[in-house]
């Protein structure tokens, strides 16, 4: 009576799908990783692994060189290599900028895009031309298949305005960025430009470029720029009042170096070209002093002598 029951128990331990097929030694093949139990097997596994990696590397390199070879020897591909297949004409232009330039400017600058295929756009040339623009620091150009051209640019930020005589009769305003570049700005609103102080420098420090187009960088501006940037961000009410900025040998090591600013209320504010933060703190303190705040016009404030401030009402 016991035997059939035992047989049933044994059978019930097997899964239903196993019951249809007898258990053969081939079904005992391990599905888990074949971790070796002997050094010899481990060494063999390592050798096989290294061979597989080498073969993959070899095939990848071979494939890469083959694709390159085919691309270079294909008469239908000129200039750029297109591994992505045929593209449609450009339908969308995505333009991103951190400054004043916008998509309208880009479309004007770029010229007509109608009928131009995405693969026909020479990205290298486009990038080069964008970076050639004085207002643009860097540019990133990419294709998004099938029909989108994406441009991202980083612009220079104007800090000062420099008015220069173009010829005998005309004057032209040039924007000065924090690195000393002089450029003709595009896309800035009149109100934003009106707030910028003017730069006054000796004529001999302004040198034209070799191609007679534009001017070389003003090398003293990187020393002056931190003062203006700090004033604009931390003391906007003072900065708004500044009209003319000039500098005299603004070399940090020069004992006579100074930056002079003319504002509406103060005839001359003199800064030392080092440690602008305490100087600006002192200026604010001075301007908030009742005696100075009530005065309609202050002749001069000299902040260039460390903690000693000389002022004349």
């Amino acid at each position, binding site marked *: 009576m016991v035997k059939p029951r035992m047989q049933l128990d*044994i*059978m019930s*331990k*097997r899964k239903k799908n*196993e*019951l249809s097929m*007898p*258990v*053969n*030694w081939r*079904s*005992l*093949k*391990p599905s888990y990783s*074949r*971790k*070796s*139990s*002997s*050094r*010899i*097997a481990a060494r*063999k*596994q390592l050798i*096989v692994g290294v*061979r*597989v990696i080498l*073969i993959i590397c070899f095939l990848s390199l071979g494939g890469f060189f083959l694709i390159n070879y085919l691309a270079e020897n294909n008469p239908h591909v000129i200039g750029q290599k297109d591994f992505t297949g045929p593209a449609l004409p450009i339908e969308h232009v995505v333009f991103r900028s951190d400054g004043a330039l916008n998509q309208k400017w880009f479309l004007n600058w770029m010229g007509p895009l109608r009928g131009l295929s995405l693969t026909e756009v020479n990205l290298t040339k486009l990038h080069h031309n964008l970076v050639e623009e004085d207002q643009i620091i860097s540019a990133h150009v990419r294709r998004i298949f099938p029909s989108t051209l994406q441009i991202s640019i980083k612009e220079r930020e104007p800090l000062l305005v420099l008015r220069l005589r173009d010829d005998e009769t005309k004057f032209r305003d040039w924007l000065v960025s924090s690195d000393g570049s002089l450029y003709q700005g595009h896309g800035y609103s009149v109100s934003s430009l009106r707030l910028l102080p003017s730069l006054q420098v000796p004529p001999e420090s302004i040198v034209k470029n070799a191609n007679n187009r534009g001017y070389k960088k003003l090398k003293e501006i990187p020393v002056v720029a931190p003062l203006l940037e700090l004033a604009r961000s931390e003391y906007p009410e003072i900065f708004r009042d500044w009209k003319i900025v000039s500098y005299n040998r603004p070399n940090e090591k020069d004992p006579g170096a100074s930056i002079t600013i003319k504002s509406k209320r103060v005839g001359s504010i003199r800064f030392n070209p080092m440690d602008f933060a305490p100087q600006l703190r002192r200026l604010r303190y001075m301007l908030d002093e009742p005696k100075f705040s009530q005065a309609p016009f202050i002749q001069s404030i000299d902040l260039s002598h460390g903690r000693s401030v000389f002022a004349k009402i």
Partner: protein
Amino acid sequence: MSKIIGAVEIGTSFAKALIGEVSEDKSLNIVGKSVRRNEGMRKGEIVDFRKVASSVHAAIEDAEKMSGTTVDSIYLAQTGSHLRGNCLRGSANVASPDGRVALADLQRAAEEAKRKQPASGRSYVHHVRMPIRLDGRAVEDPVGMVGHKVELAYWSIEGDESAIRMNLDLAYQYGLEVDDLILSSIASATLVAGPDMRRAGVLVVDIGAGVTDIALYIGGNIAYTGVIPVGGDHLTGDLAMGLRVLEPYAEELKLEYGKAQAEPTDSDQDLWIIGNKTIGDRTIPRKAIADIIHVRIVELFEIIYKELGGLLDPNELGAGVLLTGGSSRLPGIEQLASKVLGLPVTKANFPTGLGHELAQAENSTVLGLLHYGLEDHNLPGEQKTSENTGLFKKIGGFLGI
């Protein structure tokens, strides 16, 4: 184009690997062989997996180095006292309206025969086909013959799943596939008992170190297989115990002076146990060695006789009994076996063409594996399947991965 095949026997004392090159005309040329001492097994079963793995992998590596090639797959021998043989039968009615037997009829009968499940935790190792019967009449190839019902029987050997899995893992861990798992006794019999002997009826007894494998053929087909957990190591153990000597000395005495039956002259002969006549060395009568071995050998053949029972019919075993395996080299063993079994017993001869070093009784299983691999064991009319036909496998084989 020639094909490389490998064979591995994981014996109780030694792990053996052979690599053969099969030419287009199906002739086999042994190109690599290696034998490594195996200390991780007892009575044909693994007791220390890592030791066995080291021996087996070293043997395969040596054989590969000797052959100057690598093998992707092997024929693996399986033995052990956990193995049991059963006869599975299946039948199928002939489907064709004209009554002609087709391959599909045979396949249905084979499927029915193999349908029986082994017990839980056990797995089939080997299905050896027995005679095909068409309407009760034994035929070799019934395909195309007219009849109503085909009957097919298999001698199916099943074994303990974990023991089989461990055996397979040894190959898989070395990155080898297993072409077939073959019972040691059948492998030995394939080599030492040719088709004529098998047709005449023969009992092949392979006395290994840990176990003795037996395979009985009647009328050209397998009739019984078995594994008896007695082997050469038992003789060594008996000598060590009986003579009170350490096993290495007992092993030396067995190999040098051992015989299955004592001779009258043995009583007068004394032997030094260690041989260097130093302190601890002593003499023993040679007859004592023979007497101890005699008892165990008689016991072994009595077990065989008991296990086979009525199958040992002298009328059906025209070729008698063939002894092979390392312990069959014992002088006088065939006379003793003949006395116990009541059948003519001879030591197995090896096919011509094998080198002297290879044509030794202890190599019969591993050599038999290669020979078994060459033979076609499919149903009549069925095409031999080859696993190594995939493009990736071929490329992998070509690149040595």
